[in-house]
């Protein structure tokens, strides 16, 4: 193979049509960029920008509906778009490999991890079983899996998320491909695990001179890992260049807007909170789950233990932590969607921990919840208006009155009042989240629990929703309990922050103190793992 330059992957004028029923004509249009040997190129863009379609096109895995691709994709001198299915199959794994977002679904649950990697080797090489095994153990060591022999025999469900992703990376790299495609490989992982995986990918890439095409929506990750950046918007290439240059001197307004939307880690200045009686107070809150029935031993898991917190009017308290830290459990206990095992919860001084059914109505008036997934938190078969007036009518407000109020709320969350007559499917994720907020506010609550309310949103939409929440809080003086795994988001909206780990509060205090001078080792680790921490985002 003769190579005139070091480009492993060259994409020229790639245009992929969308089916005629879609809302735009092209999935991607006139995309051109190169990935050279030993280089990491990041494709960055918000949802719907076409970044994953490019990855699929490179792997020759475009879905049936997107088969009309024009332009060129050259991998080591071979034109991917013209290759036969057989040749593509030979190339996949050997010359190009992919790491997916969700390691649990990328691995076969009924095969041991070793056997899955072995399958890859057996398909593409003629090595003997013994040598294959030795190679696999070796790569497991390279991706820093503890106890490789045990990992070889383990099944995916026995490993942690980070370990699973290491297996997937091992599988991708075992044949030493020239090109590694990573499609949001750390999005499903906790922030500390994400930092480790990013470090691992960078290390392996440097060691083997692999070309990496890295797809992400997170500019923090870009700052962390990329040599080159390609910014995409709605399938069009907006800007391209060296990472430093694009992140520090963005030329295009869209890139500037994206960068400005990334919340910074430096806490924002917030108006002081006045002393007042607490809206919500929990006292030694415990939630346990018991598994295992007779004759086996009972096994008790503490989802939350000894959680005491309080929330004042006009105050935002953040609960941060990684998955499994119990932050959502606490929120759901306070909203009484689940029943706490022990401890007490006071809403406006009234103990609500052990109330049932209709007795909970006073709490329901005070506390409302905004959920994470905007696509699942609205009933698809009810109009926005019906969803919003549901709460007030439950509490005895007449339909007409509730409807008038709903129209006001629409304006408050910056939507047009005629949206009330439409169905949720007609709105985008960010708009639906506004509707969810309006629904929560319709009951005139004093406390809003936002359970990862901005985590599923694109960064520019996230900024709008955070701003909206801040705005509403100042107008209505409500207390917000803000659950998030994202420290950047927490720094933008919280007055106080509570850090949780394995069901326990490990640190709490004013956001400035906790973020600037973290005391607990876990808080320090969390802050150190925030991607792109050396890069000053959000102050463009």
């Amino acid at each position, binding site marked *: 193979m003769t190579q005139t330059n070091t480009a492993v992957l060259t994409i020229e004028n790639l245009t992929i049509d969308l089916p005629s029923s879609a809302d735009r004509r092209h999935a991607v249009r006139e995309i051109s960029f190169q990935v050279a040997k030993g280089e990491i190129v990041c494709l960055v863009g918000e949802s719907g920008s076409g970044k994953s379609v490019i990855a699929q096109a490179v792997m020759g895995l475009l879905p049936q509906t997107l088969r009309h691709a024009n332009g060129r994709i050259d991998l080591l001198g071979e034109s991917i778009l013209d290759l036969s299915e057989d040749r593509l199959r030979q190339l996949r794994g050997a010359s190009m490999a992919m790491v997916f977002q969700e390691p649990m679904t990328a691995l076969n649950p009924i095969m041991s991890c070793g056997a899955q990697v072995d399958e890859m080797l057996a398909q593409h090489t003629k090595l003997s079983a013994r040598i294959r095994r030795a190679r696999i153990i070796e790569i497991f060591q390279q991706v820093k899996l503890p106890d490789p022999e045990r990992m070889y025999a383990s099944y995916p469900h026995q490993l942690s998320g980070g370990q699973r992703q290491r297996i997937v990376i091992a599988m991708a790299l075992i044949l030493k491909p020239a090109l590694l495609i990573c499609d949001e490989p750390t999005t499903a992982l906790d922030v500390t695990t994400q930092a480790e995986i990013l470090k691992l990918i960078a290390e392996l890439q440097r060691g083997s001179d692999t070309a990496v095409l890295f797809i992400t929506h997170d500019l923090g990750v870009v700052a962390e890992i990329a040599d080159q950046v390609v910014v995409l918007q709605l399938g069009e290439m907006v800007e391209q260049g060296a990472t430093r240059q694009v992140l520090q001197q963005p030329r295009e307004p869209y890139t500037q807007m994206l960068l400005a939307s990334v919340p910074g880690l430096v806490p924002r200045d917030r108006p002081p909170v006045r002393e007042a009686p607490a809206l919500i107070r929990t006292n030694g809150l415990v939630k346990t789950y018991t598994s295992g029935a007779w004759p086996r031993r009972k096994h008790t898991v503490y989802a939350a233990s000894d959680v005491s917190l309080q929330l004042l009017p006009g105050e935002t308290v953040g609960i941060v932590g990684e998955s499994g830290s119990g932050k959502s459990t606490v929120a759901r206990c306070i909203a009484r969607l689940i029943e706490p095992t022990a401890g007490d919860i006071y809403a406006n001084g009234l103990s609500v921990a052990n109330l049932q059914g209709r007795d*909970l109505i006073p709490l329901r*008036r005070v506390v409302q919840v905004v*959920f994470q997934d905007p696509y699942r938190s609205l009933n698809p078969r009810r109009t926005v208006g019906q969803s919003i007036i549901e*709460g007030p009518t*439950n*509490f005895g407000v007449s339909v007409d009155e509730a409807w008038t109020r709903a129209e006001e709320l629409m304006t408050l969350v*910056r939507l047009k009042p005629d949206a009330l007559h439409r169905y949720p499917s007609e709105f985008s994720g960010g708009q639906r989240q506004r509707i969810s907020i309006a629904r929560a506010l319709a009951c005139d609550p004093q406390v809003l629990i936002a359970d990862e309310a901005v985590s599923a949103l694109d960064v520019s939409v996230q900024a*709008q929703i955070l701003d909206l929440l801040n705005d509403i809080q100042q107008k209505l003086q409500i207390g917000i309990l803000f659950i998030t795994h994202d420290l950047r988001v927490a720094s933008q909206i919280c007055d106080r922050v509570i850090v949780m780990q394995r069901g326990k509060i490990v640190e709490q205090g004013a956001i400035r103190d906790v973020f600037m001078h973290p005391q607990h080792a876990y808080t320090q680790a969390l802050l150190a793992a925030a991607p792109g921490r050396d890069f000053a985002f959000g102050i463009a």
Partner: protein
Amino acid sequence: MPTLRESIMTAPTDAVASPVRRKPLWHRVLCNWSVRLGGGVLTLLIIMAISAQWLGTIDPVAMDPSSGNLLPGTTAEFNNLSGDSFEHYFVMGTDSLGRDTWSRIAFGARVSLAVGVAVACLALAAGMLVGILAGYFRRLDNIIMRIMDSVMAIPSILFAITLMALWRPTLLTVVVAITIPEIPRVARLVRSIVLSIREEAYVEAAISLGTPTVMILVRHILPNAIAPLLVQGTYVCASAILVEAILSFLGVGLPPDIATWGNIMADGRTQFNQFPQTVLFPGIFLALTVLSVNILGDGLRDTLDPKFNKRGG
């Protein structure tokens, strides 16, 4: 540039383009070719059943032994037992007792379709109630589903035969006999749907809005369970039509003098070698009906199944 951030924040968000309005649901359903084909044939069969007396038929139970076993397409004199006599064109011939096969098939369609629709409706209603109770109230789940398991263990044909022996063989008995073994199947489906819907965030939102449990079931859970239920309903309907025909054919369904497709086939069975048409024609209609109901069900599943429109609709 300090104004940039502000400009993003205060941008009028109404300007954000909302996704294209999708075609309404009934439109998508009617555009599906399986729905068109299955639904079309089924509609024709229903029209045939309803207007049976105007479709060149005579009394389906009238006998004329002298014109027994006529071949299809024969025109012959028909003398019924009350003494009337007239010329008649026997499209599908007659059976051994001289009854007009076409008339019997056209009137028999009423029984088959009525049984199918009635069983589907009853099984869906009962299964839905049981399934919702089991799925939403976790304490009832174990008891209810174990009862359903035991109902499922009863062989349906034997159960029908027993019921026929205990009660008079009427249309109602047949419907009840076929419905009861179908209930557990529907209940299981509904339970599994309810189990997944009750975890949806909008149900939790409704709980935190203080919506009473009954309203949560009616407003939030039922409407989202309707589509898969409708699909299941078509399969229950098809199976009920078949089971009714089997019961009649075995002689344990409606009495043999009532025209049903199973009875017609049972009558023709002994002479199948000489005169296959008495078995063949009702068999074709039976197969056509069941096939069209199933094709309709497939089409409905393709258009209504939540797996295909996850993002709501």
